[in-house]
């Protein structure tokens, strides 16, 4: 015969050949995936170190009552809610204030002596509404209107402009109260339940820290939001375990602007007049403020208060993705600003590297989740097929045993993150236990898709930044379903 069987073997692939090619593909993709998973997995290990070994410090577990507070020298506390006054904000702000009011009614004379609320809004109508509604209550509620013509000395824009306006008013004596005073910063939708507020007051009575943060959960309006958004928000409570570590070590790789407590004198000294970056406003004013606070007060100024604040998930995937995009761009802006500051260059070299590379690593993990997530979804069927074949004794393992163990560990940590976040979020729902369990299951199931949707927003932000597209636009995340449907995202660009 003029042909040999081996020639035939080459020209007509057998099932064994197909399988060998498949195995090569799985191995190649697998190694690429392992590199990405390792980068993300190492960060997850730091979350779990905090979760497993320091969960008692994460939130205050001992109840505090009014009688206990009366035995302490409680500081003055101003709850500051900063809003644009856009559609949907009024009702959620009222929800937050009503919860503070419900604490004040426990002992009007006592709480009224040191607790107050300040709303800073761009809407005159909204300010009048709040002033009218809470007139005559045991809680002092003052609404301050940000004048449209107001300009800060450094040309700061967006939310930081409103925050600095309040600082300027306070420096002039507005709502001045003698004695040590703390400002508790709320987002529009934030809620501190009376019990958590009492714990916060007790801690502030004893602390020497100037800037503190606490955990945030996302149970409000929970079932009104998209399941994809709920799954995205399930990632966040465990990330707050990292916030605790960051705040207790005083190196602000991250700082969120709500559940943020700042000593009034310190805030007045620093101000929020953060300026702009090459003409573009800063869109993560909280992170920039944290960096300034670090340069001014050092690590010892930072602390963790452990009182849980409640917020709500974004209502739509579009809102959630815009929010994530804004976070990443805001942090990249802050890092760019930091590199130009003389005070930063005077810091110890190692501290500078820790601050810069620590933040870069965080951003990289967020962005890297997109290709890693996409690749894992694509490779998973092949990987599983090969894994099952190996377990059946019909082929070699796709990857060495230690690598398989690492993949399993990262998988456990990732799904565990979802379990932890969903658990904390649904704990506050007025639903039977079976429905809460079903919701946790739903979050876990949708996690691969939700994670991909979330991380691609961060990935796009990083790519745009690297390509030099640094124009920013800011649209506050809508706070009601109706407002979310009505928002014109194109107008913000």
């Amino acid at each position: 015969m003029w042909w040999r069987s081996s020639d035939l073997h080459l020209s007509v692939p057998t099932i064994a050949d197909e399988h060998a090619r498949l195995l090569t593909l799985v191995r190649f993709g697998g190694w690429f995936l392992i590199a990405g998973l390792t980068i993300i997995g190492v960060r997850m290990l730091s979350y779990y170190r905090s979760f497993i070994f320091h969960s008692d410090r994460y939130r205050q577990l001992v109840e505090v009552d009014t009688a206990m507070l009366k035995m302490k020298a409680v500081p003055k506390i101003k709850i500051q809610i900063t809003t644009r006054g856009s559609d949907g904000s009024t009702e959620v702000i009222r929800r937050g204030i009503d919860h503070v009011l419900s604490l004040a009614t426990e002992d009007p004379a006592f709480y009224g002596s040191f607790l107050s609320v300040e709303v800073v809004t761009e809407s005159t109508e909204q300010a009048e509404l709040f002033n009218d509604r809470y007139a005559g209550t045991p809680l002092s509620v003052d609404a301050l209107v940000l004048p449209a013509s107001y300009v800060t000395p450094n040309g700061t824009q967006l939310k930081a402009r409103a925050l600095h306006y309040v600082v300027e008013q306070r420096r002039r004596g507005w709502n001045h109260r003698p004695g040590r005073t703390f400002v508790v910063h709320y987002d529009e939708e934030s809620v501190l339940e009376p019990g958590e507020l009492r714990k916060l007051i007790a801690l502030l009575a004893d602390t020497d820290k100037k800037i503190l943060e606490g955990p945030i959960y996302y149970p409000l309006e929970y079932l009104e939001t998209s399941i994809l958004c709920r799954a995205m928000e399930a990632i966040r409570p465990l990330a707050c375990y990292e916030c605790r570590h960051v705040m207790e070590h005083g190196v602000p790789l991250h700082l969120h602007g709500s559940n943020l407590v700042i000593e009034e004198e310190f805030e007045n000294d620093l101000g929020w007049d953060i300026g702009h970056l090459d003409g573009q406003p800063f869109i993560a004013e909280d992170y920039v403020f944290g960096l300034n606070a670090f340069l001014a007060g050092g690590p010892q100024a930072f602390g963790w208060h452990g009182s849980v604040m409640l917020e709500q998930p974004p209502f739509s995937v579009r809102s959630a993705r815009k929010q994530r995009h804004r976070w990443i761009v805001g942090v990249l802006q802050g890092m760019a600003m930091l590199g130009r500051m003389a005070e930063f260059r005077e810091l110890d070299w190692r501290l500078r590297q820790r601050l810069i590379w620590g933040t870069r690593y965080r951003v990289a993990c967020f962005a890297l989740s997109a290709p890693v997530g996409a690749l894992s979804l694509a490779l998973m069927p092949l990987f599983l097929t090969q894994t099952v074949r190996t377990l059946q004794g019909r082929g070699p393992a796709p990857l060495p045993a230690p690598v398989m163990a690492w993949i399993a560990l990262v998988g456990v940590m990732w799904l565990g993150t979802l379990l932890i976040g969903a658990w904390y979020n649904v704990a506050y729902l007025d639903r039977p236990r079976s429905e809460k369990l079903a919701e946790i299951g739903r979050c876990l199931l949708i996690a691969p898709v939700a994670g991909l949707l979330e991380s691609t927003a961060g990935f796009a932000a990083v790519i745009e930044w690297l390509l030099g597209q640094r124009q920013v636009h800011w649209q506050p995340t809508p706070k009601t379903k109706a407002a979310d449907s009505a928002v014109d995202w194109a107008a913000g660009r």
Partner: protein
Amino acid sequence: MSPRRFTAGARAAAYAGAAILLTTFYCGLPLALAIRPVLRNSALCLLVASISLLLATVWIVRILRRTTPTARPVATYRRPTSGDNSPAPLLAWRPVAVPQMGFQRAEEVADTDAWTIPLPRIRWSSQPH
């Protein structure tokens, strides 16, 4: 058991089952493969991997239960009609009795303002749920 509770229970079981399946794919099978060179028996590997994952879940849930001491339903704010923020008629604040355990009984501050229906939804009590 009422049909409604049965349906809710069945749905929870279905989601829990699907979540377990997902966990098996992402964690169980890789773990079973990782220990196969040691145990050499696939069925035993799967059993050990399943038990390990179960223990890990129990451990996480124990920490979660410890760090969720006072969770209770929180008021929600829903406006019955969409629209702008035009001020609605507001009720004056009414003082309420303060219960001994320190939690305000939200029913007593029920706001009849149709614009917002927040506080009556709360069921705070001195006992954790």
